[in-house]
């Protein structure tokens, strides 16, 4: 009989997850309780993560083309959702999901479709910083 895990979002919504799906998370795996609260992650995001886990628990062959397509679809979200998903997947230590999400961000950087605040308004002046570093090293 497989256990059922309860994942609670920061806005107090609970998701019930079957063992196979839940154990994709290292955090859950090494937790002594079947009730886990995921801090700083809202239901909208946690729900998506659960969806991913469920999908991956039911399909054993992750190299399957259909799953790959599903995954590609899954990560094609708005970048702010993407970042939140990364935070959640990272906390839950779901390696493959983290891999897929970070791969997506990398792809967006390459495609120049990633627009973050820092990129739009860089605050860092490389040359000046290097000059100062050199100075402090006695050059």
């Amino acid at each position, binding site marked *: 009989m497989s256990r059922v895990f309860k994942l609670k979002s920061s806005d107090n919504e609970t998701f019930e997850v079957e063992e196979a799906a839940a154990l994709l998370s290292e955090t859950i795996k090494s937790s002594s309780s079947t009730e886990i609260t995921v801090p700083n992650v809202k239901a909208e995001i946690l729900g998506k993560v659960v969806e991913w886990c469920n999908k991956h628990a039911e399909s054993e062959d992750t190299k399957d083309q259909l799953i790959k397509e599903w995954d590609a679809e899954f990560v094609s979200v708005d970048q702010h959702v993407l970042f939140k998903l*990364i935070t959640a997947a990272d906390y839950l230590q779901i390696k493959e999901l983290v891999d897929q999400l970070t791969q997506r961000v990398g792809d967006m950087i390459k495609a120049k479709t990633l627009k*973050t*605040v820092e990129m739009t308004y860089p*605050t860092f002046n490389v040359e000046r*910083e290097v000059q100062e570093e050199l100075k402090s*090293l006695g050059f």
Partner: protein
Amino acid sequence: MALGKNCRSSSLKCSFSSGGGGEEGFVRALGRKRIEIPDAGPKTPLKKQRSECFAFDFDFEGESSKLEALPREILIKILCGVDHEDLKQLFSVSKAIREATLIAKQLHFVYSTPRKIPAFRTKIDFSESNDELDEIEAPNAPRLHRELPSRKKLEEISVNLLDSLEEGIRRGLFMDEDDE
């Protein structure tokens, strides 16, 4: 040490106005982060320092996606998947990102090179491509012919970076599982 002005201060008062922005613009708290929204009105004392404050281009659900806000290991992992050319554009974005970019570059090199990297003073195999050898040296690394006066400072910096690196490696973040 703040090199440039930026709006990431946590000492701003939080006043929230909904819809259309009030006369003073507003600051919205996200946990501990405060992001300032530009106002159309006259400058307030609070905004004196931030006169060149900017328009945020994001979906204002309240949170902007920031590369820097991600855990360091994750940021490095992301950058590992980005080519050299594209990394360049990130180099001058912010200090944190620059550091992560440098680490990613190093890692890229370490993990994609099958053979061991020879030390500088040992025999160099010239039959291999020399491009990689050029890359061994860290960019902008000063040539030091004497002991560093601020070694301690360097150690502090590198410990910080190495911690992140170690953490990432420990968690297997930089491992390439697929062998095609």
